[in-house]
């Protein structure tokens, strides 16, 4: 099965009967069942984010997802409920993914322009009758990791530049520049530049 086919939308599901706060408090006390419910509730969203951050590498994304929830289990007792649990988990997932990605030299490379264009140029043409979303996902996977992270967090996840800059340990201006270049690379690939 194409990995892209596994991406599903669950927006139509009804609201949870038990809220995150109650489950998180129970899980912090060692209730594995409550923690599993939190996992079932949040894992699909986090997995989509991690899958994109990891360039469409499903196995790598699931490794990071696993590490994120193990970390969350350990840190839940310190969670102060000052933000939504989902937000807390998202940040933890992004942090974990970035630690993983930083291990790769490509992530730290600042040369996103030419190298990114070369990758895009070398990519096989996507049959145009495919869904636009599929084209877009594939084009996203070809972006340099850092530029892709900025674009995913900003344009898909809705983060602000100052949040991205803090998480990626870069200046706000760099975040904006990376986003600009990432969009340019995507447009070039999709043929609407």
């Amino acid at each position, binding site marked *: 099965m194409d990995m892209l086919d596994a991406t599903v939308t669950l927006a139509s599901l009804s609201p949870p009967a038990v809220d995150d706060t109650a489950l998180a408090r129970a899980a912090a006390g060692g209730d594995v069942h409550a923690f*599993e419910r939190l*996992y079932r509730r949040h894992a699909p969203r986090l997995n989509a984010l991690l899958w994109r951050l990891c360039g469409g590498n499903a196995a790598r994304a699931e490794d990071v997802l696993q590490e994120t929830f*193990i970390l969350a289990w350990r840190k839940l007792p310190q969670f102060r409920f000052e933000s939504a649990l989902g937000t807390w988990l998202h940040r933890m997932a992004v942090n974990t993914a970035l630690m993983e990605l930083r291990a790769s030299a490509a992530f730290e490379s600042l040369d996103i322009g030419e190298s990114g264009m070369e990758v895009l140029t070398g990519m096989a043409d996507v049959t145009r009758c495919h869904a636009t979303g599929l084209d877009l996902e594939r084009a996203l996977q070809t972006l340099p990791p850092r530029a892709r992270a900025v674009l995913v967090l900003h344009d898909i996840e809705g983060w602000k530049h100052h949040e991205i800059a803090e998480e990626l340990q870069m200046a706000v201006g760099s975040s904006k520049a990376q986003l600009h270049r990432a*969009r340019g690379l995507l447009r070039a690939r999709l043929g609407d530049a």
Partner: protein
Amino acid sequence: MEENDNDDLTRQLAALPRERLPSAAVWQRIAAQLEQAPPAPRIGATPLPVPAQLPRPRRAVRRWPWLAGAAAAVLAFVGTFALWQPGRPATVAMTDTPLQRQANVITHEYRQAIATIPAETVPAELRPALDELDASAGSIRTAIDQSPHAGFLLGQLRRTYALRLELTRQGLAATGLST
């Protein structure tokens, strides 16, 4: 710099699916690790010892990529379980529990199946993986003896044996032989 926030591209990006179901193995691996990684104490409480660093799931097997997910799940699970010390001595049962009896049946059936395959026909390049799966099955059997009521171990044992048999059959198929 954000002049294009409302163009077609950004609208398409914002419309991409926001959810993607992870494989079932992810929760299984997490659940196995929760056993030995209790939640950290609340702030102000007496700190507990830091749990041991757990092995990470193994990565893909190049020639038999279909094995990667299953093998990673089994091996990661066994690796983590091997580190798990429940804090009580191993149960020395005079009589096997129902779970242990089932494990014995599964092991017996597996041994009968594997005995039909001549060991010398298995490709040498598969040997390390097969040995590791054998060791994994042994570790699970030990774990069952230590925790004779942990039902999930039975599933792990069954999957490990199934994986071992399937890998052996795939190896034979690759060499033109058949079981």
